[in-house]
């Protein structure tokens, strides 16, 4: 069953309801049609990339001893040096990004070090964390003694940290800061009141 499903999806474009292959006349239509299998209305947009086969490049074997070999594959001919570390790379190890050719290790290091901003796969929303720190523990009252100062620390620590790559305002930071200051003020008032009552 699993092999059959795999074959279905690898044969081309499939219907979204049952993952069944769509007939060719339906694939080229631009208007809403009905899938002959599941009878569901379906809208299909096919692009020229569908007809192109994508195959990776296979590294060339090392011909003579005088030829430079890949740093990672000693039997493969080097085709380019890494723009970061300068190691010779075969076509398999070369990762082309706009403006540079990197080896996998430098690529990984660049992604981890957030040098390649457009390849970032995740970002932490420090403003949301600050807001959660200022609001959620307040429901249990006592944690506020720790979380209110922690919120202010978090805001100061991450004020300049990168947030979302999408447009995003800083209102969460401002609101969390205001709440934290209010919580600390309330704590101070309660402590002073208790001390006065005891005297």
């Amino acid at each position, binding site marked *: 069953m699993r092999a059959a499903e795999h074959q279905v999806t690898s044969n081309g474009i499939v219907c979204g309801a049952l993952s069944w292959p769509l007939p060719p006349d339906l694939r080229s239509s631009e208007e809403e049609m009905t899938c002959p299998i599941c009878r569901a209305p379906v*809208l299909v947009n096919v692009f020229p*990339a569908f007809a192109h086969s994508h195959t990776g490049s296979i590294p060339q074997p090392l011909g003579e001893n005088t030829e430079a070999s890949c740093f990672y594959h000693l039997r493969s001919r080097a085709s380019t040096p890494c723009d970061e570390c300068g190691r010779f790379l075969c076509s398999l*190890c070369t990762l082309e990004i706009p403006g540079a050719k990197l080896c*996998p290790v430098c690529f990984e290091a660049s992604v981890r070090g957030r040098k390649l901003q457009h390849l970032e796969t*995740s970002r932490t*929303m420090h403003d949301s964390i600050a807001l959660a720190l200022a609001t959620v523990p307040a429901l249990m009252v006592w944690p506020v003694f720790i979380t209110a100062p922690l919120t202010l620390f978090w805001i100061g620590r991450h004020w300049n940290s990168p947030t979302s790559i999408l447009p995003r305002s800083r209102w969460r930071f401002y609101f969390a800061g205001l709440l934290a200051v209010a919580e600390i003020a309330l704590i101070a008032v309660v402590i002073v009141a208790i001390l006065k009552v005891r005297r």
Partner: protein
Amino acid sequence: MNRTGAEEQYVRLTGKRRTWTGFSQAWLGDDHLLIVHSIRFVERYQRFALSDIQAIVVTEGGRRAVWQALVVLACISLGLSRTSAFAKGFWGIVGSVALALAIVDVARGPRCRCFLQTAVSRERLLCVSRMRTARSFLAVLVPAIQSVQGTVPAEEPAQAPGPAPSAAPASMPISQPALSIPRPPAIERTLGYAPEVLFAVLMLDSVLVFVALRSTIGVAFSLLPMVYFAEFLMGILALVQSRARNAALLAVLAATFLCVLIDPFVLSGTAVWPGFVASVREASSGTIFWNTRIGASVTTMLLAAGWRTAIAVLGLLVCYFERTAARN
């Protein structure tokens, strides 16, 4: 795509499709489609180069009208069959909310499932869940893709390409030359410290729980909710970040999380509960409420503190050995 760090301008394609844990949204960049999956505190990004997109299939479906009507009818019948005013009011409110949700659902138009296909993947776009959204999404995206790829000739899609080398059916034998292709160098993943922090918290909590169970209701109610909250939060964080960790640590983390969930209901929590109830009863007769001592048995105290200590030591040892093995 550039390497200068300059922020790229994105055009919003869909609204936020919200779930309990976050949202999903589609944006259009200069040369790629960006899908954002948010889990509140972290945004994850998926990029599809416009030149790589082979097809977009939108299938209408997933109607819920029957279920919605059944829920509304059930609420009405339950409301009518009850005699008390409270029950009538309760089922009336629930039915009204269900009816309002059904009306909103119908007003938003038919649901759909949208799939984006590339040579190596077939991704469901959760942010495109209505036909209306799908049409506006395609109205912007399709011209953008066509400006990169051009338009497809009328007869070309019929000639579906054969399976890509990586997508061969499982039943097909793998050809020998494919095995001789060298693999790219392996990349080492660094291990996070979330499990270690969890076990350190457990170590600290063992002392706090012991102190809480030996003292008064007031102290217990100050300490225990914090302890439970911290353990639960760190447990989830450690489990989420432990995908690349070894099986032994995963087992310890799973056992830890199970114990964290069970403890408030069978051990430390139940030890405090009788004292709490007794003090509430006594409070009506004028006794000071928060200063009532908890009558937890020594066995309970030792068990509540003991499992935390034991599992913390075990977990820290497993983490230590895992790191040592990874270093070698």
